[in-house]
Structure formats: C-alpha cells, structure tokens
C-alpha cells in the first residue's frame, strides 16, 4: 500500500469513527445523565474506597458497601418523599391556594380594577407579554369540574378561595379570547393529562428504571477498577506517545477529580446555606430542606443553583399564608423580599467563600464560555447537555493544553 493510500485510508477510518461516535452519542443520549451520575459518584467516592482499602477491606467489597449505602440513602429519601407527598385533596388545595395567590398578586401589582380591564401604567406596558404567561399558569392550576366537586365533597377550608378563583377566571374569560380558551380547556386538558399520566406511568417508570440501572453499574465498575481501564486505554497508544499520553491522562484525571469533588462539596455547602437562611427567615424546615436539596442539585449547572433557590423560595412565598421567622423585620408582606435577600446572600457566600476555597482553581473558564457551553449543550442534548457542558469543556481544555505541552516537550509537534 502506498503512503498516499495509507493516509487516505486513515482519514476515511477516522472520519467514519467520528461519525459513528457522534451517532452513538446521539442515539444513547438517554443514558448520558445516568452514566454521568454514576461516574460522578464513583469519582467522589474514590478516596473513600482507597481509605477502606487501607483498612484491608477488598476493593470490590468497599465499592459494594458504598453502593448499598447510596441505595439505602436513596430509598430512605424516596420513602420520606412519599410520606411528604400531599394527598389528592391536599394537592387540589395547593393548586387552589397557588391560583388564588397568583391572581391576587397579579391584580395588586398591575393595579387592576374589578373588571380586570383597567390597570396601572405598568399593566399597559407589560400586559401583552404577561397575560399569555399568566393564562398558561392558570391553565395548569385551574380545577376541572370533577376536581371542584371532589374539593366540595371533602369540605375543604379553601372553598371560599376556590369560589374567588372561579369568579376571577370567569372575569378573565370574559375579558380576553385567550381567557375563554383557558377556562374552556382547563378541565379537558387537566383531565386528559391526569388520565394519560395514569396510563403512561407504568411504562414510563419502567423506561426510567431500565435507563437508570446503568448508574449503579457504572458506579460499581469505576470504583472496582484499579487501573485496568487506564491500562487498556494506554495499551492502544503507540510507544512513542506512551509517556505523553500517561502525563496527559494524569492531568485530565487531576482536573476532573478536582472539579467533580469540588462541585460536589460546593453543591452540598450551597444547599445547606440556602436551607439555613430560608429556615431563619421563616420557611418551615421541611420545605427549606426540599428547596436546599433542589438548589444543591441544580448548582451542578452554573447559575442554576441561584435560579432554583429563588424559584423555590418565591414559590413558597406565593403559597405561604403565615410565616414564623427567627429574626425580626420579616413579615408576610416582606417575606418575598426576605427570600430574595436570603438567596442573594447564599449566592454571595458561594461566590466569595465556597468557590475560591472548595473549587479553587480547578475550573478557570471565562463566563462567556460557560454560558455558551451551557446553551450549546442544552440545544444539542437537552438537560443532559446542560449537565455535561462544564465537565466536558474542562476536560477538553485540559486535554488540549496538556497535550500541547507534553507533545512539545517530547518533540512530537
């Protein structure tokens, strides 16, 4: 085979491999998040397994112990979540309360009169954009006739609010064609959604379970591995690239390990801070814990932790009827402002204390790169892309920088 033919074959094989890899990634994108979660947990737990190994516990047993621990914690979490889940009537009451609070707040902020047609200056400026949004939320929250009958039969304390909601909806329905559609379809869409959800729940749960089964497998495999993966990878490298590849792999391992462990600690610290601050301003501990966990989990995607804390806190502020703050100055009227201040304070602590100390210099990315990466990841792979954007950018950055450095040092470029 001539040199030119050899080069052509190499190019064809390379391009075909790249296309195949892209096709596989796209086809298996549903597995990306479970695989990522399993991998991240394994990375976090590697020092723990090493510690257990030092105590003469075999690596496989140590990995199994950690898996059992995670499974137990997960099961306990699910059980407590199920216990905390509202009953059917309680769920209806939450929707009634939320709708009541929403319409009341919207009406107050917009200065709307009884006919909902005249408002303040802000209303005239923004109502064309805000009304469809409010209508969409109303679509979700409004009760169907069946649900209303169910609520009446339960002799709920919120019947008065539900009547006020129905009245407000009727006024809105008379005011805009969109409102008519909203009221007319609310029942049908909710009913059909409930029915289809009930019908689809079994297969959907099966799909989720079959997809997520890969997470513990990857977790176990990565923790059990004592170097075979790395050796296998390096065995494919030509001899002249062996030492540079060893050095580059070590750099990537260091960077990824620092990032994963750093972000895990930062998420835990941020979740705990939000929990404490929200509890101080009067959010019940049960809800503060839920918002804290939600915030911590969302913080894996940059800037999302702040958004999650703000949304969670404000959602509670919207629904809360009374608050019991541990500090003065927080009243039901100023509660939303207190939530904003608490979340801003948590974000400030994260940026000033946690990021420099916990995350250190493991990720030094320009904010523009972070934003573009997240949007690009979300566009290509949805939530999985958002989740993986920063670790991927980090790995690519280290891969390029380290490869260039080591290949130059070895005189290969």
């Amino acid at each position, binding site marked *: 085979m001539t040199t030119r033919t050899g080069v052509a074959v190499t190019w064809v094989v390379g391009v075909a491999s790249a296309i195949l890899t892209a096709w596989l990634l796209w086809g298996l994108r549903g597995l990306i998040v479970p695989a990522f979660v399993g991998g991240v947990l394994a990375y976090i737990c590697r*020092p723990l397994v*090493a510690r257990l*190994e*030092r105590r003469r516990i075999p690596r496989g047993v140590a990995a199994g112990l950690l898996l059992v621990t995670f499974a137990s914690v997960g099961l306990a979490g699910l059980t407590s979540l199920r216990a905390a889940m509202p009953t059917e009537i309680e769920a209806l009451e939450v929707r009634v309360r939320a709708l009541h609070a929403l319409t009341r707040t919207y009406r107050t902020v917009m200065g709307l009169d009884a006919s909902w047609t005249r408002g303040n200056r802000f209303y005239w400026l923004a109502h064309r954009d805000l009304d469809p949004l409010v209508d969409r939320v109303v679509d979700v929250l409004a009760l169907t006739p069946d649900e209303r009958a169910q609520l009446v039969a339960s002799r709920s304390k919120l019947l008065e609010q539900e009547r006020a909601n129905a009245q407000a909806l009727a006024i809105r329905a008379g005011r805009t064609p969109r409102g008519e559609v909203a009221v007319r379809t609310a029942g049908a869409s909710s009913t059909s959604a409930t029915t289809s959800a009930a019908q689809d729940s079994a297969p959907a749960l099966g799909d989720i379970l079959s997809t997520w089964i890969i997470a513990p497998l990857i977790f176990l495999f990565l923790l059990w591995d*004592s*170097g*075979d993966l790395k*050796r296998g990878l*390096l*065995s494919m490298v030509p*001899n*002249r690239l*062996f*030492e540079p590849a*060893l*050095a580059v*792999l*070590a750099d990537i*391992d260091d960077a990824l390990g620092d990032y994963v462990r750093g972000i895990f600690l930062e998420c835990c610290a941020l979740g705990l801070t939000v929990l404490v601050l929200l509890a101080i301003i009067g959010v019940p501990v049960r809800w503060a814990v839920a918002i804290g966990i939600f915030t911590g989990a969302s913080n894996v995607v940059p800037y999302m932790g702040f958004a999650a804390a703000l949304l969670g806190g404000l959602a509670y502020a919207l629904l809360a009827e009374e608050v019991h703050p541990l500090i003065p100055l927080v009243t039901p009227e100023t509660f939303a402002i207190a939530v904003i201040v608490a979340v801003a304070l948590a974000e400030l602590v994260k940026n000033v204390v946690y990021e420099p100390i916990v995350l250190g210099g493991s990720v030094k990315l320009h904010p523009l790169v972070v934003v573009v990466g997240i949007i690009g990841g979300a566009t290509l792979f949805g939530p999985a892309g958002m989740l993986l954007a920063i670790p991927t950018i980090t790995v690519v950055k280290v891969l390029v920088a380290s490869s260039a450095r080591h290949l130059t*040092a*070895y*005189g290969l470029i």
Partner: protein
Amino acid sequence: MNAKLAFSGLKEIRLPRRAGSATTFARRARSLFQQPETLAADRASLVEFLGQVSLFADVDRRDLVRLARIVHAREYADGESICEEGRPGVALFIVRRGVVEVVRCAAGGEETSLVLLEPPASFEESAAVGAAMTRWFSIRARGPVSLLALGKSDLDALMVGSPALANKVLIRLAGIMAARLQMLLDAELAAEFNLEGRP
C-alpha cells in the same frame, strides 16, 4: 568485573576503550544502571517476575499482585526508541524480556553506546518520583523487547490507595538512587586517583 559492582540486568558495557577515560566512563555507566542486589532468574509470571525486581524486593506477594495490576506492559520492536535524550520522563521502566541499549550523543552528534541492559534491570527511577529531570541518555530496543512501565501518576495513585506499599517502593527507589550516587562518586574518585597515578 568488581564483585561489588556486579548486578543482574547489566548485560554488557559497551563504551569505547579510550586510554585513561574508558574505565571512568565504564564505572560511571555501571554505577548509574547498577541494581544493588542480585536476583533469581525465574520469570514465569508477571507477579513472580516483579518479585525478582530489586525495586520490589521488600514487597509481599499480595502487594505484588496489586503492582501487577497497575504496571503497563509495552512491546518494542528491534531498534525502536524507548526514551529520547533531552526529553522529560514520567515513568520508570523495567526490562522484562530482551535487551535494551543505553546510548548517549557525543558533542559531534555521534552516538556512544554505554551499556546493554537485560531483565530485570530497571531505568528512569527519577522519573517515577517526579524529579522533572531531562534525560541525558537515549534507550532503544536491541531485538524485540518487553518492558514494564510504572508512571509517576500510578505511583501517586498507589500512595493514596496503598500508602504502605507505596512507601516500600519509594524507600527502595530512594535506596537504589542513593546507592547509584554512591557508586558514581566511588567511580569518580577511583578514576581521579588512577589518572593522577596514585594507588
């Protein structure tokens, strides 16, 4: 050959016989690649082979099994370069099969063959401890060669996972490097004495 400087793995010293300086070069070369202890010749399996490497002389079988899981097996063809002079190193190598040749470029560009190494010789120990030194010699395969490589990153991981084992290896590494330094000094002093015509 002086019994004190004999070691397994040093197959042949191949320095040019120049009047006065050849012995000095030979002594230097032997000092740098000498294994402090003589080991048995049984190489039936990787674990057994690792047990014969002086670097792992204090390591028990269970830890040898662990080491066998982290070392990288590399195969080299005849004449293939293993290490290049002037380049950094990130791994130490152990000769498992075959013979490797250590060469050094002279000022004029011509290569001088220093020594031949055979199993279970090791080289580039300073790279494994992250000494960040550039190599002053090149090594290439003489015939088909099997090597085992232990990277600095592998040793770092060993320090986290099995500090006791890593300590044994590091102490041994330090011992080997110290012994080589001592022998190099001895060789230097002996050469100076010889050149000056003193006993």
